[in-house]
Protein backbone atom coordinates (compact mmCIF):
# COMPACT_ATOMS: atom_id res chain seq x y z
CA UNK A 1 0.00 0.00 0.00
CA UNK A 2 1.47 3.39 -0.99
CA UNK A 3 1.71 6.49 1.21
CA UNK A 4 -1.08 9.05 0.79
CA UNK A 5 -0.85 12.81 1.24
CA UNK A 6 -3.66 13.69 3.59
CA UNK A 7 -4.92 15.72 6.52
CA UNK A 8 -5.11 13.49 9.59
CA UNK A 9 -8.63 12.65 10.71
CA UNK A 10 -7.42 13.40 14.23
CA UNK A 11 -6.57 16.95 13.20
CA UNK A 12 -10.04 17.31 11.73
CA UNK A 13 -11.68 15.86 14.84
CA UNK A 14 -9.62 18.06 17.17
CA UNK A 15 -10.36 21.19 15.10
CA UNK A 16 -14.09 20.58 14.94
CA UNK A 17 -14.32 19.25 18.49
CA UNK A 18 -12.56 22.21 19.98
CA UNK A 19 -15.33 24.40 18.68
CA UNK A 20 -18.36 22.14 18.86
CA UNK A 21 -17.98 19.64 21.73
CA UNK A 22 -20.13 20.64 24.67
CA UNK A 23 -20.63 24.16 23.41
CA UNK A 24 -23.90 25.94 24.19
CA UNK A 25 -25.44 26.90 20.88
CA UNK A 26 -28.50 28.62 19.48
CA UNK A 27 -30.16 28.68 16.07
CA UNK A 28 -31.49 31.94 14.61
CA UNK A 29 -33.67 32.38 11.53
CA UNK A 30 -33.13 34.91 8.76
CA UNK A 31 -35.31 36.58 6.18
CA UNK A 32 -35.09 35.57 2.54
CA UNK A 33 -34.07 39.19 1.87
CA UNK A 34 -31.03 38.92 4.15
CA UNK A 35 -27.49 38.33 2.93
CA UNK A 36 -26.15 35.66 5.27
CA UNK A 37 -23.37 33.32 4.27
CA UNK A 38 -19.79 32.13 4.53
CA UNK A 39 -18.26 35.54 5.25
CA UNK A 40 -20.38 35.98 8.40
CA UNK A 41 -18.39 35.44 11.57
CA UNK A 42 -20.73 36.16 14.48
CA UNK A 43 -24.45 36.16 15.24
CA UNK A 44 -26.22 39.47 14.73
CA UNK A 45 -29.80 40.62 14.35
CA UNK A 46 -29.40 42.08 10.85
CA UNK A 47 -32.02 40.35 8.69
CA UNK A 48 -33.27 38.18 11.54
CA UNK A 49 -36.94 37.24 11.51
CA UNK A 50 -39.44 38.65 13.96
CA UNK A 51 -42.92 37.53 14.88
CA UNK A 52 -45.20 36.06 17.48
CA UNK A 53 -43.36 33.84 19.98
CA UNK A 54 -40.01 34.25 18.23
CA UNK A 55 -37.29 35.70 20.44
CA UNK A 56 -34.28 37.37 18.87
CA UNK A 57 -31.32 35.03 18.99
CA UNK A 58 -33.43 32.00 18.19
CA UNK A 59 -33.72 28.80 20.19
CA UNK A 60 -31.26 26.61 22.01
CA UNK A 61 -29.61 23.77 20.10
CA UNK A 62 -29.36 20.44 21.92
CA UNK A 63 -25.68 19.55 21.64
CA UNK A 64 -25.04 16.21 23.35
CA UNK A 65 -23.04 14.74 20.45
CA UNK A 66 -19.27 15.04 20.44
CA UNK A 67 -17.43 15.11 17.12
CA UNK A 68 -17.00 11.50 16.03
CA UNK A 69 -14.69 9.75 13.58
CA UNK A 70 -15.31 7.01 11.04
CA UNK A 71 -12.44 6.21 8.72
CA UNK A 72 -11.05 9.52 7.45
CA UNK A 73 -14.22 11.53 8.20
CA UNK A 74 -14.87 13.61 11.31
CA UNK A 75 -18.51 14.55 11.77
CA UNK A 76 -21.08 16.20 14.03
CA UNK A 77 -24.83 16.83 14.24
CA UNK A 78 -26.95 18.45 16.94
CA UNK A 79 -28.45 15.70 19.09
CA UNK A 80 -32.07 16.80 18.68
CA UNK A 81 -34.24 18.56 16.15
CA UNK A 82 -34.45 22.33 16.46
CA UNK A 83 -38.04 23.44 17.06
CA UNK A 84 -39.72 26.84 17.05
CA UNK A 85 -43.11 26.23 18.67
CA UNK A 86 -46.35 28.13 18.11
CA UNK A 87 -44.82 30.95 16.09
CA UNK A 88 -46.15 33.22 13.42
CA UNK A 89 -43.47 34.39 11.00
CA UNK A 90 -45.32 36.18 8.24
CA UNK A 91 -42.32 37.55 6.30
CA UNK A 92 -40.56 34.96 4.14
CA UNK A 93 -37.43 33.47 5.68
CA UNK A 94 -35.10 30.86 4.24
CA UNK A 95 -32.02 30.48 6.41
CA UNK A 96 -30.88 29.35 9.81
CA UNK A 97 -27.55 30.11 11.43
CA UNK A 98 -26.17 28.03 14.29
CA UNK A 99 -23.81 29.87 16.61
CA UNK A 100 -21.95 29.39 19.86
CA UNK A 101 -23.52 31.47 22.61
CA UNK A 102 -20.28 32.05 24.58
CA UNK A 103 -18.88 34.34 21.91
CA UNK A 104 -21.58 34.41 19.19
CA UNK A 105 -19.18 32.74 16.78
CA UNK A 106 -21.00 31.14 13.89
CA UNK A 107 -20.92 27.46 13.03
CA UNK A 108 -22.74 27.69 9.70
CA UNK A 109 -25.66 28.84 7.58
CA UNK A 110 -28.26 26.49 6.06
CA UNK A 111 -30.71 27.67 3.40
CA UNK A 112 -33.97 25.89 2.61
CA UNK A 113 -36.27 27.92 0.36
CA UNK A 114 -38.56 30.75 1.44
CA UNK A 115 -41.15 29.82 4.06
CA UNK A 116 -43.66 31.42 6.38
CA UNK A 117 -45.25 30.02 9.53
CA UNK A 118 -48.82 30.78 10.61
CA UNK A 119 -49.82 29.89 14.18
CA UNK A 120 -47.64 26.85 13.79
CA UNK A 121 -44.39 25.01 14.36
CA UNK A 122 -41.15 25.10 12.45
CA UNK A 123 -39.12 21.93 12.91
CA UNK A 124 -35.57 21.67 11.63
CA UNK A 125 -35.06 17.93 11.45
CA UNK A 126 -31.47 16.80 11.82
CA UNK A 127 -29.93 14.21 9.50
CA UNK A 128 -28.53 10.94 10.76
CA UNK A 129 -25.32 11.56 12.68
CA UNK A 130 -22.92 9.37 10.73
CA UNK A 131 -19.97 9.87 8.39
CA UNK A 132 -22.22 9.99 5.30
CA UNK A 133 -25.08 12.19 6.48
CA UNK A 134 -24.05 14.29 9.49
CA UNK A 135 -24.83 18.00 9.47
CA UNK A 136 -21.11 18.82 9.32
CA UNK A 137 -18.54 16.42 7.86
CA UNK A 138 -14.86 16.89 7.21
Amino acid at each position, binding site marked *: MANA*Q*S*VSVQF*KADSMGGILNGAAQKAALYLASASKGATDTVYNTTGEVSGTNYTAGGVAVTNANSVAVTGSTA*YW*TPSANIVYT*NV*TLATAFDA*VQIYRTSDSHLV*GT*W*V*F*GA*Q*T*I*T*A*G*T*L*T*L*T*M*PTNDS*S*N*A*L*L*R*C
Partner: protein
Amino acid sequence: MALIYTTKGDIEDALLEKKVITEDYPDATVTATEYFLGDELVKRDVNVALKGRDLNMAQASF
Protein backbone atom coordinates in the same frame (compact mmCIF):
# COMPACT_ATOMS: atom_id res chain seq x y z
CA MET B 1 -62.37 14.81 16.90
CA ALA B 2 -59.04 16.59 17.13
CA LEU B 3 -58.64 20.31 17.70
CA ILE B 4 -56.09 22.23 15.65
CA TYR B 5 -54.69 25.51 17.00
CA THR B 6 -55.05 28.23 14.37
CA THR B 7 -55.14 32.00 13.99
CA LYS B 8 -58.78 31.73 15.01
CA GLY B 9 -58.13 29.61 18.07
CA ASP B 10 -58.82 25.90 18.33
CA ILE B 11 -60.83 24.53 15.43
CA GLU B 12 -62.01 20.98 14.82
CA ASP B 13 -59.82 19.41 12.16
CA ALA B 14 -62.87 18.19 10.23
CA LEU B 15 -63.71 21.83 9.46
CA LEU B 16 -60.31 22.52 7.94
CA GLU B 17 -58.92 21.69 4.52
CA LYS B 18 -55.38 20.38 4.78
CA LYS B 19 -52.74 20.71 2.07
CA VAL B 20 -49.24 19.23 2.18
CA ILE B 21 -46.50 20.66 -0.02
CA THR B 22 -43.06 19.04 -0.36
CA GLU B 23 -40.08 20.76 -1.97
CA ASP B 24 -36.48 19.66 -2.35
CA TYR B 25 -33.54 22.09 -2.07
CA PRO B 26 -29.76 21.53 -2.11
CA ASP B 27 -29.53 21.97 1.68
CA ALA B 28 -32.91 20.60 2.77
CA THR B 29 -36.18 18.87 1.98
CA VAL B 30 -39.14 20.96 3.10
CA THR B 31 -42.65 19.75 3.94
CA ALA B 32 -45.24 22.45 4.58
CA THR B 33 -48.66 21.59 6.01
CA GLU B 34 -51.31 24.22 5.45
CA TYR B 35 -54.78 24.38 6.98
CA PHE B 36 -57.56 26.43 5.38
CA LEU B 37 -60.88 27.53 6.82
CA GLY B 38 -62.72 28.22 3.62
CA ASP B 39 -60.28 30.24 1.55
CA GLU B 40 -58.36 31.57 4.55
CA LEU B 41 -55.02 30.12 5.62
CA VAL B 42 -55.32 29.70 9.38
CA LYS B 43 -52.29 27.55 10.13
CA ARG B 44 -49.01 26.66 8.45
CA ASP B 45 -46.47 24.24 9.91
CA VAL B 46 -43.13 23.57 8.23
CA ASN B 47 -40.70 20.70 8.63
CA VAL B 48 -37.22 21.30 7.21
CA ALA B 49 -35.16 18.12 6.94
CA LEU B 50 -31.63 19.53 6.79
CA LYS B 51 -29.01 17.84 4.65
CA GLY B 52 -25.46 17.51 5.84
CA ARG B 53 -22.55 19.44 4.48
CA ASP B 54 -19.06 18.22 3.59
CA LEU B 55 -16.47 20.81 4.62
CA ASN B 56 -13.93 19.60 2.00
CA MET B 57 -10.70 20.56 3.72
CA ALA B 58 -8.00 21.21 1.08
CA GLN B 59 -4.30 20.35 1.38
CA ALA B 60 -1.60 21.82 -0.82
CA SER B 61 1.69 20.16 -1.76
CA PHE B 62 5.18 21.39 -1.01
